[in-house]
């Protein structure tokens, strides 16, 4: 049996990536001998969720409740999943490659003595079980063998499409109220709060982000880019090189090690698009790159691009925006 952790959002609906994980589990089942796909949900299971998971081919939904899992704790929740797994006899435990998913699968793996593969993209064999997973922030992939049973892993976001099954599952809900050992509850969330919006928050929630990279050329050469930022009522995001060189403060950094932005439009100026930056901006709906190098990854991955010296192009754009009466 394949056991998939299904995470739910604040409304109690399954997250998209969890449905992707279920879909992956179905593919795995199909490649094997059709072992059933089960889900484990910690918290409430609404009728809608039950129906949706059934549509995704889930046979049994293991609902875990009780005081032990009321607040989040990695060890406690993993203990619950592990108890479900043992009760149901699953040989595969998986989750979406979210922060939670990775954390809980790591706990499960540590508790069972199994290996754990994070951010799996696909599998290429069952005996031995070989998976391909994302490493180096997505810039490379690793083919990895998972020898032990259970096989514990997470599925990288958007590695597979979330699609309902051709044949629905039973979607039967089985209740679990496992006992959680006190030592597994020591590290437990004691409170959850909404952080105040600060400057870096503005960057992650901005509708337009103007990016600035190495091509700007120096701490004293941001004038044009800042003017564009202001004209578009946008936030400024910079590449790691810029903060490393001390040209701009760290909280403006976009990337794997900075903010991950999701604007309607991202305008990277003089940013070549190193993997680590791309990891932070790839969710932008549109990218308009301004770069002197037509071959730069940022250009080839962009929606739109202008080739040339940003110090010539950006002032021209600023002037054109003003000419058309925008920007206050």
């Amino acid at each position, binding site marked *: 049996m394949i056991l998939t952790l299904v995470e739910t959002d604040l409304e109690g609906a399954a997250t998209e990536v969890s449905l992707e994980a279920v879909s992956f589990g179905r593919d795995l089942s199909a490649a094997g001998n059709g072992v059933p796909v089960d889900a484990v949900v910690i918290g409430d299971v609404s009728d809608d969720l039950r129906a949706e998971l059934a549509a995704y081919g889930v046979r049994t939904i293991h609902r875990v409740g009780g005081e032990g899992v009321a607040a989040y704790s990695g060890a406690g929740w993993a203990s619950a999943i592990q108890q479900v797994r043992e009760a149901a006899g699953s040989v595969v435990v998986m989750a979406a490659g979210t922060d939670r998913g990775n954390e809980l699968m790591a706990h499960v793996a540590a508790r069972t003595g199994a290996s754990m593969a994070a951010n799996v993209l696909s599998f290429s064999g069952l005996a031995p079980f070989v998976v391909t997973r994302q490493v*180096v922030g997505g810039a490379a992939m690793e083919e990895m063998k998972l020898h032990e049973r259970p096989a514990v892993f997470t599925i990288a976001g958007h590695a597979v499409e979330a699609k309902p099954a051709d044949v629905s599952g039973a979607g039967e809900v089985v209740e679990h109220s496992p006992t959680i050992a006190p030592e597994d509850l020591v590290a437990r969330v004691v409170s959850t709060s909404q952080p105040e919006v600060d400057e870096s928050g503005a960057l992650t929630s901005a509708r337009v982000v103007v990016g600035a990279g190495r091509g700007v050329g120096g701490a004293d050469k941001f004038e044009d880019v800042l003017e564009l930022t202001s004209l578009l009522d946008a936030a400024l995001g910079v590449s790691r090189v810029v903060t490393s060189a001390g040209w701009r403060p760290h909280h403006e950094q976009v990337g794997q090690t900075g903010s991950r932005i999701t604007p309607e439009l991202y305008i990277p100026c003089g940013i070549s698009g190193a993997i680590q930056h791309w990891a932070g901006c790839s969710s932008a709906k549109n990218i308009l790159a301004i770069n002197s190098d037509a071959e730069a990854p940022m250009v080839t991955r962009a929606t739109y691009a202008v080739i040339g010296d940003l110090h010539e192009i950006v002032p021209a754009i600023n002037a054109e925006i003003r000419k058309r009466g925008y920007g*206050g």
Partner: protein
Amino acid sequence: MAAANVLVCVKRVPDSTEEVVLSEDAQSVDGRASGFTMSAHEECAVELAVQLAAGGGEAAVMTLGDADAVEQLRNALAVGCTAATHVVAPESYRFGPVDVSREIAAVVRAHEEEGRTHDLLLLGNDAADSGDFQVGIRLAYELGRPVVNGANTLTLEDGDDGPVVVAVGEGPDGQETYRVPLPAVVTIREGGVEPRYPSVPGRLKAKKVAIEERQPLSEPTGPGRVRLVLPPPTPSAVQILGEGPEAAPAVVDVLEKLGVLTK
């Protein structure tokens, strides 16, 4: 609450570039051109360790890695750590998460036997190269300590039964706070503190610190890695609006189309 003895675990990883180069045997990333670093998560962990140790505690750093990994230890020493341990492991890519957590635990235990305690063990949330997301958690199980995953700020408090670390991190539903008695393990996600760059005096001081060298406890069982492969290039769908400043009107047309301009 004064200070804690903190041990931060770092890993020498290739710095990120546009194009990853693999080693000839495809077992690791070739970082000769890009250079090596520790991940940003770990840079923040080092910064937190230095802050939490200020006022009487010890900020120690350790790594498991090839001889060259001493560079990352020196870098941590240069920004305020005062002791370093190097588990010298040639071909360190052969060490998987299980092996590494076991080796770290061995160092912690050995230090305890020598009378050195590490109240708080800090690690990065995930390694920038192998991306395993599990070493800190496995370490906690090895040592029987509680673990908080993915925190970005840490403070120390006096609890009813001794010192407590208050760890805050981003959860799916908002900012989550943990209060965990020491000793504990916390994995750090960057964003809560700004790592500092070394100063010249810091760098000179780091040079003089004697680094404790240890051998690995046992042969590694390995990461289960068959090989690394590079993803195929993604086809470009970019629409080139033009070259040079003459393209400005075309750019503003796009801005209008996307509706991001305001009068």
